[in-house]
């Protein structure tokens, strides 16, 4: 039997797994804080002040919190979602081949780069 070529899937699967963890852990925390706790008045009135958030995301600890938020809240979940779309296309028998892969992971990469760029803009403006 001939030896099959090694699949590049471990790269996408690793990003998918990391994104899944972020989806499962970070997104519920964000929803709990921003969509439930704050509207219910469980947080201080000024907790989500623009200046305060700006300070946290771009100034404190070299903007590390902003980078974590962009990476774990946007970039990795994007790869997670597009990995599902990519395999979903296969399940629906849309034979997109290599182009499907380029479209899915390309759009995830593009939006990730954009998100990181905006974080960098905020960082340099602070």
């Amino acid at each position, binding site marked *: *039997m001939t030896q*099959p*070529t090694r*699949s590049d*899937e*471990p790269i996408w*699967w690793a990003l998918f797994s990391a994104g899944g963890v972020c989806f499962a852990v970070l997104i519920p925390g964000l929803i709990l804080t921003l969509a439930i706790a704050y509207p219910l008045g469980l947080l201080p009135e000024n907790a989500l002040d623009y200046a305060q958030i700006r300070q946290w995301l771009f100034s404190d600890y070299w903007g590390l919190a902003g980078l974590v938020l962009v990476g774990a809240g946007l970039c990795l979940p994007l790869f997670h979602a597009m990995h599902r779309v990519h*395999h979903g296309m296969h*399940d629906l*028998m849309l034979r997109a081949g290599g182009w499907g892969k380029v479209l899915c992971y390309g759009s995830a990469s593009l939006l990730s780069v954009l998100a990181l760029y905006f974080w960098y803009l905020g960082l340099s403006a602070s």
Partner: protein
Amino acid sequence: MQKTLVIQRYNPEQDHKPHPQHFTVPCDDSTSVLDALLYIQQQLDPTLAFRWSCRMAICGSCGVMVNGIPKLGCKTFLRDYKDDITVEALAHFATEKDLISDMSVFLTHLQAVKPYLINHDTRPQPHQQTPKQLAKYAKFSNCINCGLCYSACPQFGLNPAFLGPAALTLAQRYNLDSRDQGKAQRMPQLNGKNGVWGCTFVGFCSDVCPKQLDPAAAVNQGKVASAADFVIGIFKP
């Protein structure tokens, strides 16, 4: 008590396509689908073709689709079905005749992953193993090669070249065995797109496994092993 079985009949020498045929069989609480098939063959229609051997979920021969779900005929009982019961040959395989599937694709995939101990030590003493080492792979070692997981797997249905749940589970079973030295020979098969990466973790294989092997877990452990192998491959040409 009586029940009606709707059996998908197919004789490639006469039929253009499979067609259903109704049989009414006597049954009680202990009548299995296999018992019912044997009754039909012995009393109603001797031309009905199906595989069977042990009648106790050990041989893995009597796999059929019962109401669209892959089942062992001997382990499925008429008492659990209210209405008519549909019996067909296993899905995702070619049908040779009536309920007999052509399992050769499955057997080829099994062979590809070398599902046996590979050990170059030729000394005559036994290869000892601690209970802890045994526990690592024991849960994956009860496969009876019935092929139900292949009928359950939508990815095998879409792509018959996918090695499939049972073969990948057996690969993982031997890779986890402390007496085995064949992992390097098996990994290239697992690393390909038709290896572990053909799986999208649907999990239906684990639902239908008559021996509760959890092939989906084994395949996903294989993904971790293949990802580790990928990283090692980057640093070690």
